[in-house]
Each structure stands twice: as structure tokens, then as C-alpha cells.
């Protein structure tokens, strides 16, 4: 049989109109997706705070900007918010905006209170604003821990001069602890002044200097006083993770420097754990007066949310520009109805003096 048994003269079977109607209905009900790229209409309060045991309260408050909205990227201080912090087992503290010169250059308004933060204590933050709504957050300050057997030695790491900072962490056993190490240089202002006839004169001005020299020529008893005044400005020092147990592997190349070193007590819960990290020494000293300062080395126990935020924040900064924005690691936040992080820490800190502060 060589001929086809197919019938080529068949009529087109009618598709029932009901099917067409059904298809149209299905298309219609499923077309409820949002328009292509609608932008939010209102901004939110932004809080980026760290409550450190033993320190007074400082809460930076600002407002967000709408991404892609065509507005200039310039953040405004929010000075008219009602900010309060309630302490577990304690009272409720009203924070007020602090207009001291040290906070002038911040992108946010600084709300402060002299009360000292306590370790192993919970806090709830509330910030209200008529335009941006009410943002809240809560955090538990980690309990105290000690660092022993601290030693330093100058060496090199990957061809760079570093200061190796070695120590033992005495890890509390009752809970999981999150540690981070950082080093910053607090810039100082070296002030020179003298008193004459009960009046204080600034030697660092030309008039003051001329007066001082004149008084010296006249054999007047006048003493030049030098004072080092810490500022609220800091330089971040590069760190190298020398302990393979650190969590920095997921941030970037372990041979490169980091802003912070991250470590949990997974391997040493409840024990005394020897560890170290290295600090790049290239900024330890400075020829320019504006960059003289004191090296502050910190070993902190931080709240889990703060640990996650800062780790992702480090990854974000490390990856920025290397991949599309929507592929970046956005830090996980804990502000309800707002943006940002309320973190907490217990800090062990050491001061190192390398600059000539005279």
C-alpha cells in the first residue's frame, strides 16, 4: 500500500466560542501585574545606631531617598523627630538632637542622652516623625566578656607592614556570641594656648602667637600649654584576617584587607580562644597635622542582627561596582517601618600612640 490513508479534505473543526471566551477571561484576570517599575511615594526614617555598653546614647536619624527618583543624592538631617529609648528594667529616656560642632558634618542628626548603656540589657527604640511615620527597633546588648594575653608585634603580611594584634577571648558559655574586630584612628586636634592676666589666648592664631612672643621678649612669665582634643572624625585602618576561623571568607579574597574581621564562637564556645589579626600600619603616623591621631583597636561582642548587618554591609562595599546593583548583598535590617539597624555591642578597646602629638 503506497498511497496515504489520510483524508486531506477534512473540514476545520469549529473551536467552540466558549473556549475563546475562557481564554480571554484567563488572560484578563492574570494581567494584574504592577506597572513597569513604579517608585515608592514616601520616604522612611533611617536609623543607623550602635549601643555600646559603657558609652552614652547616640542615635543618628535621617531620612531615606527614593532610588531612581531623579533627586540629588544628598541626605538631610531630621531634627524634628521624637526619639526615645526604653531600657529593660529601667526607665524611658527622651533623646534630644545634639547640635555640637562635632556632629555638624554628619549626614544625619545625632540624638543623644548622657545615660550609659548597660551590658546584658534590652533596649527598645522609638522614633516618631509626622512625615516619615514611626520607626521602632529592639536589641539586646551582649553580656560582658574579657580579653587577655594581649600582645603586639610588628611584622609583614602579603608584602605589607602590619601590626599583629594577638589576644585570647574568654567566651561566655551561656549563649552564642558574635565577635568583630576593628581598628580606627581617631583624629585629634592639637591645641596650643596660654593664660595671661587670667585670660586664655589661642596660640594657634597669629594674634595669639604674636602676643606670646611679645610677652616672652618682655620676660613675662607665660607658659605655653599643649592639649590634645579628640575629634569625632576617624580613619578606618585596613585589617588582615590571620585566623582561618574568621567569617571573612564569604566577603572577599582572604589575602586582601578588610574593614572588619568577623568571627563567631562556633569553634570555641565557653573557652579561652587565642586569635589574632593584623592591622596595616600605613596610617599609624602622619606628617600632616590634620591626620594625626590615636589608634583605637576594638574587640567587640555584638548582637546577631548587628553582626549580620555589618557582614553584609562589608560584602556590599566590597562588591559595589563589580556587579549590577540588583545583585549586591543588601544588609539585613531590623528597623520596623523604617530602614537601618539598631545594633549593640560590648567593647574591649586599646589605645595606641604612634603620632607625635606635641
Amino acid at each position, binding site marked *: *500500500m503506497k498511497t*496515504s*490513508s*489520510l*483524508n486531506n479534505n*477534512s473540514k476545520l*473543526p469549529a*473551536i467552540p466560542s466558549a473556549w475563546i471566551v475562557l*481564554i480571554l477571561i*484567563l*488572560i484578563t484576570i*492574570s*494581567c494584574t*501585574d*504592577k506597572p513597569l*517599575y513604579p517608585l*515608592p511615594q514616601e*520616604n522612611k526614617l*533611617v536609623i*543607623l545606631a550602635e549601643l555600646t555598653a559603657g558609652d552614652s546614647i547616640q542615635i543618628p536619624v535621617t531620612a*531615606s*531617598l527614593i*532610588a*531612581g527618583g*531623579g*533627586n*540629588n*543624592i*544628598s*541626605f538631610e538631617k531630621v531634627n524634628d523627630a521624637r526619639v526615645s529609648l526604653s531600657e529593660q528594667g529601667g526607665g524611658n529616656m527622651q533623646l534630644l538632637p545634639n547640635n555640637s560642632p562635632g556632629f555638624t*558634618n*554628619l*549626614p*544625619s542628626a545625632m540624638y543623644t542622652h548622657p545615660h550609659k548603656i548597660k551590658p546584658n540589657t534590652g533596649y527598645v527604640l522609638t522614633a516618631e516623625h509626622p512625615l516619615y511615620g514611626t520607626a521602632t527597633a529592639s536589641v539586646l546588648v551582649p553580656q560582658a566578656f574579657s580579653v587577655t594575653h594581649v600582645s603586639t608585634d610588628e611584622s609583614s603580611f602579603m608584602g605589607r607592614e602590619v601590626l599583629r594584634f594577638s589576644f585570647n577571648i574568654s567566651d561566655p558559655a551561656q549563649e552564642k556570641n558574635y565577635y568583630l574586630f576593628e581598628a*580606627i584612628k581617631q583624629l585629634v586636634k592639637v591645641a596650643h594656648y596660654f593664660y595671661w592676666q587670667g585670660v586664655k589666648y589661642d596660640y594657634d592664631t597669629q594674634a595669639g602667637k604674636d602676643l606670646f612672643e611679645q610677652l616672652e621678649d618682655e620676660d613675662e612669665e607665660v607658659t605655653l600649654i599643649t592639649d590634645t582634643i579628640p575629634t*569625632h572624625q*576617624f580613619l*578606618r585602618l585596613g585589617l588582615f584576617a590571620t585566623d582561618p576561623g574568621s567569617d571573612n*571568607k*564569604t566577603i*572577599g579574597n582572604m589575602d586582601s*584587607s578588610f*574593614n572588619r574581621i568577623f568571627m563567631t564562637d562556633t569553634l570555641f564556645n565557653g573557652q579561652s580562644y587565642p586569635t589574632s589579626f593584623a592591622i596595616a600600619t600605613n*596610617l599609624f603616623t602622619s606628617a600632616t597635622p590634620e591626620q594625626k591621631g590615636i589608634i583605637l583597636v576594638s574587640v567587640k561582642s555584638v548582637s546577631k542582627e548587628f553582626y549580620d*548587618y555589618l557582614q553584609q*554591609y562589608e*560584602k*556590599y562595599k566590597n*562588591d559595589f*561596582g*563589580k*556587579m*549590577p*546593583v*540588583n*545583585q549586591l548583598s*543588601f*544588609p539585613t*535590617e531590623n528597623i520596623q517601618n523604617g*530602614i537601618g539597624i539598631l545594633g549593640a555591642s560590648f567593647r574591649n578597646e586599646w589605645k595606641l600612640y604612634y603620632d607625635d602629638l606635641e
Partner: protein
Amino acid sequence: MKVYFIISLLLAIISTSPLRAQKRSLLAHSFVPDMQKGTVIQFLENLNTHSGVVIEYASNSIEGTRTVTLDGSESSVGAVLQKVLQGQHARLMEKNKKLILVKSASLIDTDALVPFYTFYGFVRAANSREPMAGATIIDPITRRGIATNPYGFFSITLPEGRHRIEISHVGYTPEALDVVLKKNTRAEITLDLHQETLVMQPVIVPSGNLLMKTSGNRIDHRKGENYNYLLGENDPLRNTYLLPGVQHIPSSFSGLFVRGGGPEENLFLMDGNLVYNPTHMLGALSIINQTSVKSMQLFKSDFPSKYSGAISSVIDIHTKDGNMEKWQGEANAGTLSGSFTIEGPVVKDHTAIMASFRHSWKSPILTTFNKGLDPNFYDAHFKVTQLINKNNKLMASFYSGRDILSKTISNTENLNKWGNLIGSLSWNKVISSRSFINTSINMSRYHNLGAYKYTLFEEDNDDDEDNDIELESGSVGTFTSTAQYNIKSQAEIFLNHKTKLNAGIELGHTIIKPFETKFSEEIDDNEDNYHTFEPLPFDELSAYGEAEMRIGSKFFIRPGLHVSAYRFKNYEHLSFQPRIFASYKLATHHQIFSSFSRMTQYLHLVTNPYLNTNADIWVPSTSKLLPEQSDSYNLGYRFDHSGGWKFSVEGYWKELRNVTNYVEGKSYFVNDENWEQNVSSGKGWAYGTEWTIQKSGGKLSFLATYTLAWSWRQFEGINEGAKFPYKYDRRHSLNAGIGYQINKRIDCSALWSFSTGDVFSMPDYLYPDFDNTRQITNPADLLKDYRFVYHYSKYNQYRTSPYHRLDAAINYRTNSSKNNQFLVTAGVYNIYGSPDQYIYEMKGTLKSKSMISENSFASFGMTPYLSVTYKF
């Protein structure tokens, strides 16, 4: 080897036992009546007298005076009684070596008495003896039919007597054979190519009015060539893109997304061998050479039990053996590449080889219309087939392919290098008239290097990029390689005319070679410079069993089970994967079907989020990264008219478990100890409906498919644990193709594809840098002007613009002799230059405005093409 011999022995025992004959031994006695026409009583008396078999009956238990006429083909007691007692309310029993006929309330079944014999053999193409997969063998009288397996083998059990068997295959002239079955009979059937039906045949091969045994789609790669051209390249895999529920996503690994599944969830088999990345040019073109393909089938809802290892789809491709009769070949020169294929007998009717080779080139047409595109790929395929005897065949095949692709998009240079090396040795054996077994040893190796170089510029509101200052640049690269070795046996056992068994066993060993993310100033494309980590090997032992059962003439069911045992270091996993498919014939042209399948996949592909970089990494399942699983539920209706119209609609629901994703932000594998921490697993859902209407035959052909689908994912730690739409959650997809045969030499076609856009994430807010709020600055930070942080509220909350594309082509065939024919193809790909990818970027610094930029790209812009093929 011990396993194989045990299985073969079992098969031999089962398949060579004449089950039906033993059960009705008296009925199988040979007997030819003295007369062709007579009354029932006369035939019974003749049987008692001359057959040697005693039959007892009461005269009032039957209509003894009814006249019966035999056709002369009856040669057994059973065959004679079947004809004589047809239409009688009676029942026949065999007892004490006698047949006893009693009265019954019901009629004697049409085949209750007659012995059954097996009609088996191979269907091959004339002039080449190429085994034909998917040819149908039908006995229209008994309505029994079967399709040949991928090796061209068939076995059908029919009652004793005369039969007119019809054999057909799309594109070939049907054959009819008159067969008189008196014993198991073997046939070697050849079909001629039907010259008048070279084109305008259905892409999706209809099952005709046969009861469906699977909802998998058999693709006729030759007949869909109107729709599968890419710049003149005839790519059989592109036929699958026309199917509803199948998405082709350019610039992605493998390019294939099926029913909401990811690109790594498709099992691509070439001659039973796994191919890790079956595409060139980032998914634009497959590695399959059209001239070497024998059969292609896609399963996306109903998975026969022999398949496992992918949770979304299986594409099973078998290549030709090679022409056993004469030498022939084909040479092609097109816009994108040049290729040739040659096949022929080394020893006629015993040994044949097939060799094909393809290499890309930069034609002036390509570079004129696609500046910056620099394709560089090749394929080499070689196969040798040896017929040992009529029951045994050996096949050895080898494939090598490689790609080097470089592109520059948005100040980012991308480089991809990947390749496959595949080899297999296969043995087909006809064990008996009712059993067939294929055993193979396979090897598949794959390597992939993906790297990009980024440059960050200081931005301002000036659109002139020449004024931008370079702040930072660097390169990131990833290299990985994978190798799999396996041995497997798959058997088909035709128990009787209603039941067929499929069973098999497989042992596999996979090694994932080291992978590393490398940071450097410039792109490093030397694989030897990538740091070697400890290999990750795992083993898998699997077995399956399945029954194909026809119940009555309207109902078919295929239950099965696939069991696999997996081991990676100290982690072991046992997976039970039940499968079931059922179909029911409502009427001659109407069927409904339903299926459930559970699939398990032990390999995870973690897709790197880098822009336009195929830097994907395979990782094994572990105790932390459990095997991926899917449960698919499917319900459908199909209308199949012999006049060439076909309509189908299906609804499906699919659940996915342990699907993988990079942990947000942890997209680098920087060392081998903690790579599992960079990967998270979650779950997903996909559901929707799929519609197909197709008209073939005649001068005009038409194909339209529509899909309405949803696809979701949910990962702890992403989108705050809430479910979010999968990246390629394209709500609507429509394909409409039309072809017209102008005359015997010229035909033309057009294809329009449309789909809703993809979803994507973009930040909706930005806020100050954390250190900035403490006046902590980093002097080494080159990105001072970017000291702010983006924030986004939801994952994948936005959707791109829709995708659509129009292609057109025209073919001209010289009316030369069959041995020398030219085919000239001309067309335009992407007629109006529509993009197939949208990229959104956020721009802005502390000195400028925050802006969104939308960039659209097309893998290939509007490109005319010309392709010339010479067949000899």
C-alpha cells in the same frame, strides 16, 4: 557485568516462555478443518474426529445450526473454535485433557480462544537501513498497535490468523503487509521517504488515533525546519521552543526553561548519554547537528520510569547509525557556520560510520548586523555501527564541542569558554521475539570558564562617557569541570498483547573537579591558573520497573517506579520516585490523559548572578544541600483528527523542593571548605495551562501554542522568607507559526513569538553609609562618591517589557536527482530587531542624581541570512 548477566537470564526465562500457549495447550493443537463452510455442529464433530482433541458440549448450549465460513487461515483448534463459536453465548473450559463447552450469559470474547503469536522485527528507512524510531505498526482490525523503540525494534502480539499490518512514519510512504501468523514471525520492514511530503508536515508528531502511552512530545526534527532556523542554522532543538510550557531564554545556561523550572533542571541525553551544556553561544544554538539526528522526544509532565536526574524536563535524542547501503552526505555553508556530514558503509549491511563537523565563522552579514559579536565554536561527532548478526548490534559514538564567546556590554567585558566531551559504547540485543535489551557504557565531561572585567567610572550628570574618570577596575573569573561515567542496561519485555514491561539498572560515578573564583586585574582565561581544590565525587545506583497496560480498547495505564541510591562522602540518600500515566479514549478522536511523576536530581547548578557571564557551577547534594525533587501533576485533553488537525490543552501543578540559589551576596566560591555556606536551598511552585493547535498536511500548515503560567520560589533569608516570583516567571507565552508550500521546490514560513517580561529586583530606597554616620572614612576607598547603601523592599517585584520576535524564511530546492540536491535557505531573523534581554541599572553618586537606566539587548539583531546545503 554480573548484574547484566543475571538480568539477561531473567529476561530470557520470562520472554521465551510461551505463556498463552501453555495456558491453552489444547487450543494450540494444530488443526485444519475438512471444510471451509458448515454449521457449528458440523465443525465441532469434525474437530472431535480429526483434531485429536475431545470437545464435549450439550446440543442445547449453543446454536448448532448456525452456518460459519472460515477464511482458510485457521490452523489451530483455538483459531477454528474462535471463528465457529463467534457470537455464541458460551464458555469453553479445559479439564481432564478435554475441552468442555457450556452455555454462558455472555458472548465469547473475540480473542479468548485463539493462540497469540508475536510479530516482531525492525523498521528501517529504505536505501540506508537506518532504524526508525517512533514508526507505528497497527492492525486496524484488532485495533492493536505499537511504536518502534529508539532502535527501530517492535514487538506486537496478535492472534493467529491473517492480518493486514499497516506501518507508517511521518514523512514516509506507509506500507501494508499481509501476514499470516501461525507462529512467532520476524519481519524486517523498510519505508520509503515520501518525496511529496518533504515539508509542511507536523512539527509535533501526532499519535493519531492510537491510545496515548505518554504525553511526551515526539519532535520530527526534519519537518519542523521551517521554524527552527537560527541565521540559517537548522537547529532541531529549536523545535522544542515552540511547545507550550517551554521557554527559550537567550544568554542563559542551556537556554531552556520548562514549566517554571530552572535551566539546570533539564536532562539532555544524546544516545543515552548526559550532556551538561548542550548549547553554543550561551543558549542560542544547540550542539545537535540536524543531519545526525534520528529521533527527538521531550518529556515535561509525564516521565517514563527510566528517566531520572532532572526535575523539569527530559530531552532524549538518538543519532543515526549511518547508512548501511551507500555513501551519502551533506555540506552546508551559512551565515553563522559551515558544516559537513558524511555517512556510509565500511562493509555493506554490516558496518557503517557517520561523521559530522561544524565550525563557526564570522561572515560579513553577521558582523555587519551584529557588531561586537564574535562567535567561536565547533562540533565534531563520529559514530560507528557494527551489525554482529540479526540480533546483535554494537555502536560507538564520540562527540567533542567547544565554545569561546566574548562580549562587551555596559563597560563590562565578558569571556566564556566551555566544552563537552562525550563518548559511549552501546550494545543492542534482541533476546527473543518479545524482549529487547540495550546496554551501554557512557562518559560525559564538561568544563566551563566564565570571567568578566568591570570598570567603575566616576559618574556625573554629563551623558558624555568620555568625560568619566576611571575609578577602579578588576576581573573575576570562575572555573569548574564535571565528569560522569556510567554503565546501564535497559530492557523491554512484551508479556502479551496487553502488557509490556520496562526495566533497567544503572551505575554511575560523577566527579566535580575543583572550582575557584579568581580575582585579578585582567581576565585570566588560562584554566591552569585556577587553584585546584579537592574533587567532589559521588556515586549513584538506580533501578526502575514499569508496566504498560492496556485495559480494554479505551484505557491505558503505565505505572512505574524509579529507585536510586546516592552517596557523597558520608552522606547517603535513597530516593523512591513513583510514576504513573493514564489515558482514556472518550471517542475516536478524543482522549483525556493524566499523570503524576516524582523526580529527583542530585546535581545542583548554582547560577552566578554576574552580568552576561555563564559562570555557573555544578555542586553535589549533601546533608546540608539535599537532593532536588519535584512532584508533577498533569491533566490534559487531546483532539487528533486524521485530516491533519490537532488540538490539546493541559493543566499542570508542580512542586519543587530543595531548589538552590546563591545565598544573597555570597556569590563567590573562595575556598573548598565552606562552599555549602554560599548556597541555600528552598522550594518552589509552578502551575498553569498549555494550549496547542496545529494543522498539517496540504500546502498550508499552522502551529499555535499558548501558555498561561505562574512560577514561585521561597528561600529562608531571601525576601524575608516570603515567596517571590521566579526570575523567569513569564505569565503569557504565545508562538504562532505558519508555513506555505508554494510549489514542489519553494516553501516559505514565518514565526512570531511573544512572552511577558521577566521579573527583577531593584532597590527602592537609598540611605547613608553606616561608617559615614560616624564620620569614619577610609582613605583607600576609591568609591567615596558612592558612600550610601541601596535598600530594596521586595524580591523580584518589577517586570521588564515583554519579549517578541518575528522570523521569516524561504526555502528553494533544486529538483535534481536524489543523489545531488541543493537547498538554499534565505530569511530574516528578528525582523524588527526586538531585544531579548533587558538590564536595569541604578546610577548616581553623592554629587549627582539617582537615576534608573534601562538597556535592552538582542543576542542577534535584525539579521538577514543565507544558507546553502548540498546533499549528495
